[in-house]
């Protein structure tokens, strides 16, 4: 029970980030608690959120959530039931109704100062194309993609590219995909083991694994050390794009 409560606390902290918007929300909740006269609004914006907050911290609720939905790592979504944005903004509007111009400027400024601008997120960058995928992935896939009517091809991509390849072209099958990259899943895959885990790739092991998987192409990051060149094993270097070498296994082509 105590550990479940700690988990809840941890989830709550992770959800709230720096905690300033939470403080703003709590202030809004308290303000509405004392000033809101409409019963329907009190129910929906004070009582129900308060009950949900209490329920969130109860360990049996987490157990029930995991049992029903078969997952514990999404418990934070229970907090989605509290319309924090609506409650906070409504309270600002109500609190400053008679001076709404000041309220608007001050409210927007407080939200901006206490919150975090989404466009500053490290996962946001300028799109290079309409697919919103890294351009070099598209260029690499264009080199190895089968022509119309040809069979699909399998390729081994470095883990930093696997998210994007099939978002562009599903005719490329992957030796391993995103399921190998997420550390919490901890799956095993023979190609991933020899391609991504060692500090220096052993070419012989890599080729053995990719041939067993019928991978026609291997894409290697130039920065990754490898003990021997793949060309000495019957591979052809098709191209080098943005620091990635594209090899084709001629043994599988024939």
């Amino acid at each position, binding site marked *: 029970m105590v550990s479940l409560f700690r988990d809840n606390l941890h989830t709550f902290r992770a959800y709230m980030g720096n905690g300033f918007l939470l403080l703003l929300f709590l202030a809004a909740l308290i303000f509405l608690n004392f000033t809101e006269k409409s019963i329907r609004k009190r129910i929906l914006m004070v009582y129900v959120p308060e009950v949900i907050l209490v329920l969130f911290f109860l360990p049996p609720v987490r157990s029930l959530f995991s049992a029903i939905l078969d997952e514990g790592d999404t418990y934070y979504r229970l907090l989605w039931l509290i319309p924090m944005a609506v409650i906070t903004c409504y309270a600002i509007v109500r609190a400053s109704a008679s001076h709404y111009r000041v309220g608007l400027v001050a409210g927007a400024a407080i939200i901006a100062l206490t919150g975090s601008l989404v*466009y500053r997120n490290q996962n946001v960058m300028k*799109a290079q194309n309409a697919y919103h995928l890294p351009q070099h992935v598209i260029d690499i896939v264009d080199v190895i993609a089968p022509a119309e009517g040809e069979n699909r091809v399998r390729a081994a991509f470095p883990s930093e590219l696997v998210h994007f390849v099939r978002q562009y072209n599903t005719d490329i099958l992957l030796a391993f995909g995103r399921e190998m990259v997420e550390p919490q899943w901890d799956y095993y895959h023979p190609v991933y083991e020899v391609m991504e885990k060692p500090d220096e790739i052993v070419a012989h092991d890599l080729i053995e694994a990719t041939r067993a998987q019928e991978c026609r192409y291997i894409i290697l990051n130039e920065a990754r050390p490898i003990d021997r060149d793949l060309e000495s094993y019957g591979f052809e270097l098709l191209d080098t794009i943005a620091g990635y070498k594209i090899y084709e296994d001629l043994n599988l082509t024939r």
Partner: protein
Amino acid sequence: MSFFSIVKLIFWLFFVPLCTGLIPYRFLPLHKRGVSIVLIAGYLTLFALFEIVAIPCMLMIVYHSFYTCANIYTVVALVAAGAGVLVSGKEFVRREKKELRVRGIRQRDREELFYWFLFVCIVAVQLYMAATNLFFDGDDAYYVVESLLAQQAGVMNTILPYTGMSTTLDIRHALSVITMWEAFIAYRTGVHATILAHTVLPLAFLPLTYLVYFQIAKLLLTNRGQLVNTVNTNRSKKEPPHMILRPVFMILIAVFMMFGNVSIYTPETFLMMRNWQGKSLTANFVLPLVFWVLLWIGTDLWKGDTSPGKAEATKSFKVRLERYMPFIFLALVNMTAGICSSMGVVLAAGLFGLSILFIAFAKKEWKLLVKTAAAFVPSLVYNILYVAL
């Protein structure tokens, strides 16, 4: 993207939902009617219809199930849109023309217009950023590829998106057919599913979310004792009219959305960074809609107390039907929750169930629970399928 693709996108993402939304429009109370609610109702109806078409296709058809699903749904959606036009197309045009005359730009307060302009500018910036920035999210390797596989290979969740291996139905994800709906739009418009998800859908889903918040604002910010929307010409210095406060509220909401990225878990982060995914629609479309329906029910209930013609009004079939409308919307929202995420069904039920208990208790209106139970029948069927499969 060709000119024809853009025209088709406007057709499927704006025109068809607008026309379909005209079906429930006819049965809405007069003061609720408007373009925004028609669009919301249109999307809800189309999502619900898609769920009815897509899930049987996915479960019962082995080969090229998506193409069959797409063909059936095309007919269903076009029939729904046509029915909407027939049912209340004329009335909608007539009423909206009248609204423009009575409450058009010229009739509005300059300050109110300024705030709306400010709000539109903020949303325009958000749309520009959404269309021109790459928001990396690992889950796209699953959801977007599911849509692309449907578009390119005609399969519905039977190929593992990560690698391309064949697989059995992963029911947890498969019942959430929003990926297939996106594939349908991609298939019909000829736009690559990834371009659709990353560049086009944010331009539809972000405004759609704000339309829901606008509906919430309309119910939250009414002049004291006044629940019907009217232009307030008698502005008091102490109490500004709700027509001014609504855009102020919407600006704050838009700012909150932009600065709500305090962690990767908040609905605001989901809205701004991956609004094409079902879980974002759950957090930013379904749950706000549940809140709106609750507000609507609450407003009707408390208004009913003071309504002088209550006894007479309840005799009228139309008024009685109007009283059922929030529950009809709730049923549609529940079906939309199912198409978005299996968890969405549970979350929507949880929020609504808890809130309606409070409302029923406060008003001693226990019949509400029966109406609520009826509105949750689609969710029940969905959950039975989820467990059985």
